[in-house]
């Protein structure tokens, strides 16, 4: 052992990937090191610079930037950087600057490559590496065509367009002539500048709507209208369209959400084409779209229940084709919402029209568009203030029961905490709901909020959406100005913590105990979602989805730069791990759950999980500090 370099090799030996090296290799590294000091603020690596060394932070901290200059991440003592340049083309892609006074050990390229050759763990570490989480997530995205393919790629021809005064007969003739399946309907500019444009002859038009093959059947023939009827009288009132630079995935979601098969594609304010469901199917063979339209065609609860296996099948295919957690969460939520909507339609068909307006409200993961394959139902009914319990509650009680029993039959078990519209407490007019939320926010205590925090993820599913939107607004407006409420929510968000470590065969808990399985929801995604919710409430965000919430949080100074990206990656990784393990369960004929066993985890996934848990742990510490319980003395 080369005792002279003890100082260097001991330090290296404490940090991965050097911690796994033999003493001889460590000595070799230590003896080849070059040292340099960088004062805080000084550039260490500049964009495009040639690089032939691996950089190791002996002391201090650095910031890594993206090409465009925005902060990518931070590295501290014991971290390495520059390995990507060494593995690729020796050019610096991510400039690095000293954030504090920093001492760097430069490890020559030859030593780096030698280590990669002789030590498999070292190679695995630097390749997958360090922005391990990030690269893992980016990799998943890259594999996924739907996320990056823009919808304009699916537009193969110009749309057929007619004026609103055209007769339906003429429109039908044009559709036939052009071998299309829909026409866009234009009119003089009016109320909507978003869809107003000028044609090549400089005439101004506004897109008014779309008339499809099936509209001729449903809206013209079935209703006994004359062939001379102007198309303007037949089309629906709202235009649902998508911008050409949105992703195919977004187009799919838009169709799912509105249950439509034709989608006008806009370049800014001008229509440039129509995308049909089948166009997307060509790109996207998974069947969540079919499933949704199938749901809406079921005449009975029994029919719906028979679709439950299709949900798992669609889930597995989606994951196998490389969907990320947002796509999966969003598709499963849409499927769940579709079941709920169809059950409500069936209930209305049986019970007659509702006596007063209502909105069926989703809570928890469905409201966040983050539903998983293992989920129970959380829902409530918000009724119009015209509601008179003695006269109307019988109707809604019955409706709630039909929906809740139906959902249970379709694979969404009853909520253990009884947060369902069948519970009278959660089947109330808007004014009562407003009182609930006001009390929770203005007179909070952690115990009470523990059971009601689920209500702070809320979204309309069916009915008069405005009833639920008012509640969303109330929460967004009030929460931010009530520190006691935020403190109580923050305290609850700390109830569930990540494990300390994650090893080949066990999970290390903070108290030193070993476990041989871990609940990834309880120990990972749920606490992450909880803490994001607190920040979102603090910044007055109206968003429900955790990633959307992080976008809103980013617009404030609430989190230090780079922190929200780290949370995003950590949440994405935890969610995907959970999803992959559920797929594994389904494929092995086991009931999927939220548990994973460390022995079923690959070593790179283990590294990533460690990083994600660490990100969560840091974020929890910050949460505690950021939202302290205001002292009583005040």
């Amino acid at each position, binding site marked *: 052992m080369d005792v*002279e370099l003890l*100082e260097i090799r001991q330090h290296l030996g404490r940090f991965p990937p050097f911690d796994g090296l033999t003493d001889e290799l460590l000595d070799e590294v230590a003896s080849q090191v070059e*040292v*340099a*000091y960088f004062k805080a603020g000084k550039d260490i690596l500049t964009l495009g610079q040639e690089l032939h060394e691996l950089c190791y932070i002996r002391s201090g901290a650095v910031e890594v930037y993206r090409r465009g200059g925005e902060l990518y991440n931070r590295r501290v003592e014991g971290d390495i950087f520059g390995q990507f340049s060494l593995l690729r083309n020796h050019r610096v892609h991510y400039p690095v600057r000293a954030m504090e*006074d920093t001492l760097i050990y430069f490890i020559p390229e030859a030593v780096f490559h030698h280590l990669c050759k002789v030590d498999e763990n070292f190679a695995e570490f630097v390749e997958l590496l360090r922005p391990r989480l990030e690269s893992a997530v980016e990799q998943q995205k890259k594999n996924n065509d739907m996320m990056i393919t823009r919808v304009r790629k699916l537009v193969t021809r110009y749309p057929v367009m007619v004026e609103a005064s055209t007769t339906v007969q003429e429109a039908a003739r044009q559709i036939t002539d052009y071998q299309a399946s829909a026409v866009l309907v234009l009119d003089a500019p009016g109320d909507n500048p978003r869809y107003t444009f000028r044609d090549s002859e400089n005439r101004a038009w506004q897109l008014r709507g779309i008339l499809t093959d099936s509209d001729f059947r449903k809206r013209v023939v079935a209703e006994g209208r004359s062939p001379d009827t102007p198309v303007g009288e037949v089309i629906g009132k709202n235009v649902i369209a998508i911008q050409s630079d949105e992703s195919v995935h977004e187009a799919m979601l838009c169709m799912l959400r509105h249950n439509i098969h034709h989608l006008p594609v806009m370049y800014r304010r001008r229509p440039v084409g129509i995308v049909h469901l089948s166009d997307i199917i060509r790109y996207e063979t998974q069947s969540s779209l079919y499933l949704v339209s199938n749901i809406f065609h079921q005449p009975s609860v029994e029919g719906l229940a028979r679709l439950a296996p299709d949900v798992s099948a669609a889930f597995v295919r989606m994951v196998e084709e490389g969907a990320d957690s947002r796509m999966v969460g969003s598709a499963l939520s849409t499927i769940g919402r579709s079941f709920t909507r169809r059950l409500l339609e069936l209930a209305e068909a049986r019970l007659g029209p509702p006596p007063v307006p209502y909105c069926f409200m989703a809570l928890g993961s469905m409201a966040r568009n983050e539903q998983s394959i293992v989920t129970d139902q959380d829902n409530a009914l918000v009724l119009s203030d015209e509601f008179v319990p003695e006269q109307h509650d019988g109707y809604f009680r019955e409706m709630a029961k039909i929906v809740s029993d139906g959902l249970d039959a379709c694979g969404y078990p009853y909520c253990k905490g009884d947060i369902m519209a069948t519970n009278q407490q959660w089947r109330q007019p808007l004014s009562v709901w407003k009182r609930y939320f006001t009390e929770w926010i203005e007179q909070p205590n952690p115990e009470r909020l523990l059971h009601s925090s689920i209500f702070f993820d809320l979204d309309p599913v069916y009915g008069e959406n405005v009833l639920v939107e008012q509640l969303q607004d109330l929460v967004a407006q009030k929460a931010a100005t009530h520190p006691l409420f935020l403190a109580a929510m923050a305290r609850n968000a700390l109830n569930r913590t990540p494990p300390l470590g994650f090893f080949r065969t066990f999970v290390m808990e903070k108290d030193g105990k070993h476990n041989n399985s871990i609940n990834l929801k309880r120990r990972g995604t749920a606490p992450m979602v909880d803490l994001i919710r607190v920040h979102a409430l603090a910044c007055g965000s109206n968003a429900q989805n955790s990633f959307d919430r992080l976008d809103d949080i980013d617009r404030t100074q609430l989190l230090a730069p780079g922190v929200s990206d780290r949370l995003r990656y950590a949440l994405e990784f935890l969610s995907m791990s959970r999803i992959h393990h559920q797929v594994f369960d389904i494929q092995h004929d086991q009931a999927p759950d939220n548990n994973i066993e460390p022995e079923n985890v690959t070593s790179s996934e283990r590294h990533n999980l460690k990083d994600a848990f660490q990100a969560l742990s840091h974020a929890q510490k910050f949460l505690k500090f950021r939202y302290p319980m205001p002292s009583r003395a005040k």
Partner: protein
Amino acid sequence: MLLRPRRTQIPDWTSYLASRAGLARDRRLARFFAAGAPAPETPIAEAPLVALDMETTGLDPRRNSIVSIGLVPFTLERGFLRERRYWIVRPRRSLNAKSVTFHHITHADIAGAPEFDDVLEDLLDALAGRLVVVHYRHIERHFLNVAVKARLGQGVKFPVIDTMSLEARIHRQSLLARFKRWIGRPPASIRLYDSRARYGLPPYQGHHALTDALATAELLQAQIAHHYSPETPVGTIWS
């Protein structure tokens, strides 16, 4: 903080070394002097440097001996560990218990170690042409001078950058430092590891000649980054 060079008696090293080269009787010394030192106006960023540290049996060159020598060639930009040198040498005078505990060098280490004479050539060659950097110049330069003179009949002197005296200029002689002393604050410690801490440099296990040499090299890089500039002429900071 901008610092004025201190007005002290600094020899004209360039002509001194040149004249010595002609007078040296020993070829090893002649070679060392002939390599000279960077001209005083050389910017520090362009000067080849070498950090030097010695562990000794005591503080008096006439009564105590050198036990180990460590050096790390470096520049303002990089320290080159690969070119480091480290020798344990057998002292002429015996080790006492105190210096054993201090340097972690034991009698067993020394038993098989070479005499100073045997490493002298390698040492002078490693220093030749480079500007020597030490922390507290009165140890290394004097010990080396006395040891060389005892063996070759001729001493060896050369310019050094003393990181301790640079630290003293900053923390003891600046206006602010004098003001602080005037109001009764204790002076800042300018010992190697206390000085390093001020620049965010990590603590090392001290009293190993090679580690201390590396520590000194890093300290100079930090001092220049904070208080001087890469263009600072070496002549304004050597002594």
